């Protein structure tokens, strides 16, 4: 399993990650980011892509 952490002090809720890993990230009705904190290993590529496109570099995989 992959553990994901988003630094919500850095996150500006741009939602770029939503398009790279839609199973993990979404913008809610208030335009705020929501995410699931654990994911199957098969999501690794999508999560790494989401990390790359985050303008604030707020997404981390927790070891």
């Amino acid at each position: 399993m992959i553990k994901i952490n988003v630094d919500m002090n850095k996150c500006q809720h741009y939602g770029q990650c939503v398009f790279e890993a839609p199973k993990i990230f979404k913008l809610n009705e208030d335009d705020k980011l929501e995410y699931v904190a654990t994911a199957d290993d098969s999501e690794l590529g999508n999560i790494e892509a989401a990390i790359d496109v985050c303008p604030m570099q707020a997404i981390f995989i927790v070891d």
Partner: protein
Amino acid sequence: MSEGVVVVGASMGGLRLAESLRRFGYTGPVRIFGNEGHPPYNRPPLSKDLLSAAEIDFAEVAFPQRSATADVEWNLSAAAVAADLSNQNITISGGEQVSFEHLVIATGLRSKRLGFESFPSDRHALRSFEDAKALRSKLGVGRKIVIVGSGFIACEVAATATKLGCEVHIVSPSKSPMDRALGEKLSAVVKLRLEAQGITFHMQATVIELIGSNRLEAVALSDGSTVRCDTLVEAIGSEANCEWLAGNDLDITDGLLCDGSLRAVRASGGSWPNVFGVGDVARFPNPIFDATPRRIEHWNIPTESAKFVGQQIAASYNSIEATVEVFRPLPSFWSDQFDMHIFGLGMSYLADESKLVHGDISGDCVFEFTREGVLVGVVGIGHRSVVQNYRSALER
């Protein structure tokens, strides 16, 4: 042959290129050369969070590096000074020659500067981590800052400096701030919102003279006025670092001209099969919009172009075809200034018309941008979900 892939440019584009090569199965050598002394770091915070931090810490902006690229060779403080594409080598400052099978050019941009020579320690630009450190030391309560230019960097620095207690003046030849990306109507209201925060604008004006004895004390403007200041920030745009490529049958008049697969175009016809442009330095056609090659100075372009080129190169080593043959990225940009979260997709600056489609223009709102009736961009203040929902319509 063991020379493998050589990348010139050790910033975000170089890092993402190395990651992409490994992801798509290239296992040979990757050597990266960069003129800065720092490993790759994220530049957007330089005008925002980092610039307002009490202590400027490089770790805050350094990109994490993945295990897949642990064997990549990084050569920092090592600028490329010349290239000989026919003989497949480049020359590094100091004279060392480096051979390549594939060359990736990701040398990015440098800040344009005004032509002044006096008061060098009171004049700043903002592109690198070192630039941010130097500028940070000039910001604080009671400091008087004149910013020349009114694009995103200029306005972000203005917002950050204002929040730190500086008195901030913006001087720009444009009609209103960020008008190229925001369009006339939206930029006019954004100007009002920035003025309400305390920023003074001197639009359709330029700085014609620096005034002071030992230190900068004021600037004289083309409209006849004089503005007192102790620091001048030159945020007048960027130019591409591609002079080192001269003499190689390339078009480097405004960045490196590339074809639709990001291969460097030969001035005499055709393209170099093993030489690619990545990031801000690349001028390429984008079939989402039209056939005109353009440089795109948006943060998502280095990452997207590096992924694309990495896949092309890896495929050539593995004798397979890359899944995507033409690069067609959707540009995206954002900017945070005070309570405004600006977010755009596409190329609003190509538009001949814009219209309000969501919200209230005096507050958070979304504008559509069209060219000859075709949607080319969308820009919002706030309402990020509304903007994001345009993605598929823009990607067509």
